[in-house]
């Protein structure tokens, strides 16, 4: 069953994904955001409610303060550096959204697992387009996202369909 929709004028604010060979050249490429962007822009200085929500939902733990989280496995406060790379990547993207600079970047979201990509597609790519690339095809299982691949005409609502398409392209690229 086809659950994609054909791009219409009114459809905007989506997660736009690109495979390696199609990555737009006119953007700053953040190859390891959880490390470089996270440190460069001192992400922890700017954490707000939207970041708290990311940590709650994706990491399934809570922020104690801007430098500390409640350890998920150890049940004690630990440094925020211990957040998963996927969660840190989302905090970086959220920072770029909050600073009004999301249009400048293309983020490598390979560190994000299906749960993080699902959050990105459904919660963060709503008020602004998020441009990203990755080397796997696990986008989670949301039915309520807007994902476009390589500027194609189809906008996928179903993350599973989007990931199937993305994997097909990755495999084609590998064969070439």
């Amino acid at each position, binding site marked *: 069953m086809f659950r994609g929709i054909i791009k219409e004028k009114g459809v905007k604010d989506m997660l736009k994904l690109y495979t390696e060979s199609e990555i737009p050249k006119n953007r700053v490429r953040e*190859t*390891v955001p959880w*490390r470089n962007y996270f440190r460069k822009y001192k992400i922890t200085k700017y954490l707000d409610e939207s970041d708290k929500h990311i940590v709650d939902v*994706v*990491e*399934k*733990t809570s922020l104690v303060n801007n430098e500390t989280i409640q350890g*998920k*496995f*150890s049940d004690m406060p630990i440094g925020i550096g*211990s*957040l*998963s*790379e*996927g*969660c840190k990547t989302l905090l970086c993207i959220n920072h770029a959204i909050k600073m009004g600079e999301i249009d400048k970047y293309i983020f490598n979201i*390979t*560190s*994000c*697992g*299906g*749960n*993080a990509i699902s959050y990105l597609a459904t919660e963060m790519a709503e008020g602004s387009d998020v441009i990203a690339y990755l*080397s*796997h*095809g*696990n986008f989670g299982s949301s039915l309520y996202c807007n994902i476009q691949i390589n500027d194609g005409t189809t906008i996928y609502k179903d993350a599973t369909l989007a990931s199937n398409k993305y994997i097909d392209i*990755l495999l084609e690229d590998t064969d070439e």
Partner: protein
Amino acid sequence: MNKLAVKLDELEIDFELRSTKTVVQGDSATGKTYVYELLHSEYGISSLFFINYHDVEAESNAKMICETLRKMRNKIIIIDQANDVFDTCSELENIVDRDINNHYILMGRTLRIHHNISDMAELEIKNGKASLKYLFPLPL
């Protein structure tokens, strides 16, 4: 089948390793880096070797690690953030791909390293114990 079994104060780790390359993937925040760091900081046994992104950021360091791996035998080598590690150092990726003398636990997603689908697992941390949940059965 090889095994990595160790009881730490915080966690008991019991990994069955089916072959020389085990790929541990899954959702974000399932504890992959947590287990890596626990073993790295507390498990002072020489049969383990650790690599993460910080280790290969500097080219000279990455080269040293490549040289070390070439000489290594019968170790369990744990690589965290394997995608970022291999994107940064493709030489290391080639060495790991060809190595049959060591066991690798690769925390990463859709790696270019040759491996069987029966070697793909997810980490499960439950009741103070970390184990690998393989996604596919072993071939008959």
